[in-house]
């Protein structure tokens, strides 16, 4: 039922509840563990699977079209900056994949503009955004305009 939660692995920490974009991972009041309360609003986005510290959440493909007996498991490691996938087919074949998820330590490279110099009035009056035009082009050129590119806007039927 897209995502589901193994009873013996879940400790009710709520990380999945916190991250689910669809608001469908809830804590069951009787068992104090997580469950998917609305499988037909599950995108199989794996946000909860990746966030679960106990690896307690798995996915069983949508019953409309997916036969039983498969698995797609994942380990996302923020420290190493990698994501590892294991795909198991119904007939037992396996495929493994490993990809990077970031090139920098988490959050280390994001600018807080409160620590940066204020933009000048000239820049405020221009069409430029932050760090432009250097962040668009490597040469000394400015922002593209209709004039710089020899264009005009004309009403009518043109293709």
């Amino acid at each position, binding site marked *: 039922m*897209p995502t589901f939660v193994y009873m013996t692995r879940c400790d009710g920490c709520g990380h999945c509840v916190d991250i689910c*974009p*669809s*608001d469908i991972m809830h804590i069951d009041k009787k068992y104090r563990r997580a469950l998917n309360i*609305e499988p*037909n609003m*599950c*995108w*199989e*986005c794996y*946000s909860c699977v990746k966030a679960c510290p106990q690896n307690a959440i798995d*996915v069983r*493909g*949508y*019953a*409309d*079209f*997916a036969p039983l*007996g*498969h698995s*797609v498991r*994942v380990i996302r490691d923020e420290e190493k900056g990698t994501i590892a996938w294991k*795909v198991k*087919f*119904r*007939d037992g074949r396996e*495929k493994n*994949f490993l*990809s*990077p998820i*970031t*090139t920098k330590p988490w*959050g280390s*490279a*994001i*600018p*807080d*503009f409160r620590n940066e110099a204020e933009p000048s009035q000239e820049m*405020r009056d221009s*069409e430029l*955004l*932050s760090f*432009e035009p250097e*962040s*668009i*082009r*490597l040469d000394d050129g400015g*922002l*593209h305009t*209709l004039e710089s*590119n*020899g*264009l*005009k*806007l*004309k009403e*009518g*039927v*043109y*293709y």
Partner: protein
Amino acid sequence: MKTIVEDNIDILVVGAGLGGTGAAYEARYWGRDKKVVIAEKANIDRSGAVAQGLYAINCYMGTRWGENNPEDHVRYARMDLMGMVREDLAFDMARHVDSAVHKFEEWGLPLMKDPKRADLPEGDIGKGAYMREGRWQIMIHGESYKPIVAEAAKVNADKTFNRIMVTHLLTDDAQDNRIAGAVGFNVRTGNYHVFKSKTVICGAGGASNIFKPRSVGEGAGRVWYAPWSSGSAYALMIEAGAKMTQMENRIVLARFKDGYGPVGAYFLHLHTYTQNAYGDEYESKWFPALEKMVGKAYLDTKNQHFSHKPIPTCLRNHAFISEVAAGRGPIHMVTVEAFQDPHLEEVGWENFLGMTVGQAVLWAATDIDPKYINPELTTSEPYVMGSHATGCGAWCSGPKDISGDIPEYYWGYNRMMTVDGLFGAGDAVGGTPHAFSSGSFTEGRLSAKAACKYIDDGKAEGINVSEKQIADRKEEIFRPLETYTVGRNEIVGGTVSPSYILPFPGLQRLQKLMDEYAGGVTVQYMTNDKLLNMGLHKIKILEEDLEKIGAEDIHQLLRAWELKHRHRTSECVIQHTLFREETRWPGYYYRGDKMKLDDKNWHVLTTSQRNRNTGEYTMEKQPLYHLIDEK
């Protein structure tokens, strides 16, 4: 339930997907002392259409490598959308978009590099040009695209409110065409949240699940666009009185069957191709008849392949739909050739694992290894959104230096709608297809700079929101809980009541109505004036019933309001589809009573405005200005 008021906000970002995060980030750059607040329905780290990740950034000019200029992208979008683009806004997005992508790389997003182009000049952020998937697309390892970009928004916003379903925008009591903030509720605590703000940047999403999906059981969740995209961008803006544009321009996607796994990398990078069930190429044989429908300017059977024009997305859909209707389906993607190359095989799989895991789950479940079996494709149910190969959204002002001489396109502040102080990004901005993730982020940035200027120009002085407006909205928002509690006492149990309908049955009614009357998948995307008028009547009755929607708990209250947003979006879609008396995009939908493209009467953009008091729509044609060479 408590009422929590956040006051004195300068810039309120409603919905923090790629558009909203761009807005919050850039707002701090131009407004150092401004109060920037985010209201997000889910958790900003995994919200919006990019929650799951992406394997490509589909809008990157590569101006620094001499690859494309902004006008090249405008011409491409114009061709793909059969001419219907706000070219001023598209040019503006395209001239800025590369700077967003370069920042993403600086923040740690892994962009793939092309080893063949490592000799290109070294910039401030890494050596060599990016790996191209196609002319506009670059390939990325984007599993963490959203959490990385969310960090930039969180660092620069004063406050981020997660789990707030924004239901309505607030307007100034004295000037009801001026924005004053927003209200909603926390989907976990049930608290009522009031945001009083000088400006609002609407970054909420487009609409999945308004047309009946092909999979109606559990698989209804595996829609192409995220199931949490509830059309809130459109409903919030329409109800605030904003003028909307191109809402008829819904999109249908040709994708891998059932999982809706993306095909872009397969076509462009893996060079896979399609064939019918009998192994034949089928597209070209439908083109001569199609050429007669749309005209030679849009499809030139003889010369198209020799020109620089790709075949528009909708026209390729048309060939697909026609071939299946002729009894030669299913259509297959031929993968067995490309997948013999281990590198391309890896790309093919990681493409799904990075953005549509459900397709990998499905192939594993059905023992489909594309190295040996050519997978099936299908055409999806329609979606309403504004950042892919479609341009639904609000009618916005362009920037002065591009749009300044065109009164219909310019009223002072870039990306401001026809409601003062209301700005937008991503799906919210109309007429700007092919923005995708990077372009939506860019539109957020453009909006934020303009919103700061609007405030600095003194346009947001003296806004007043009465206690009555706030109290009335509160009563309205929580009414479904009351309706349920009262009605529930009448019946023994179950979900059937004569006094209320629950959100899910209500959603199914909307989907059936849109499917059958407005050109969904079960009628082969066909509609006409009679059907649309009947649809409008039924949607009005549904609106009356939605006054009696019941919600058992706070989670159902969320679904109730999502349904109301989907309903309002749908109503606007029908109004627009009825207004445009032609078939502009065969393969997206057909007006059976007007089966030809009609440039004489309909080479225009459509706009609508819903009267806040009467609910009546005013439809208009707006002029189309095209970018042409000065000479």
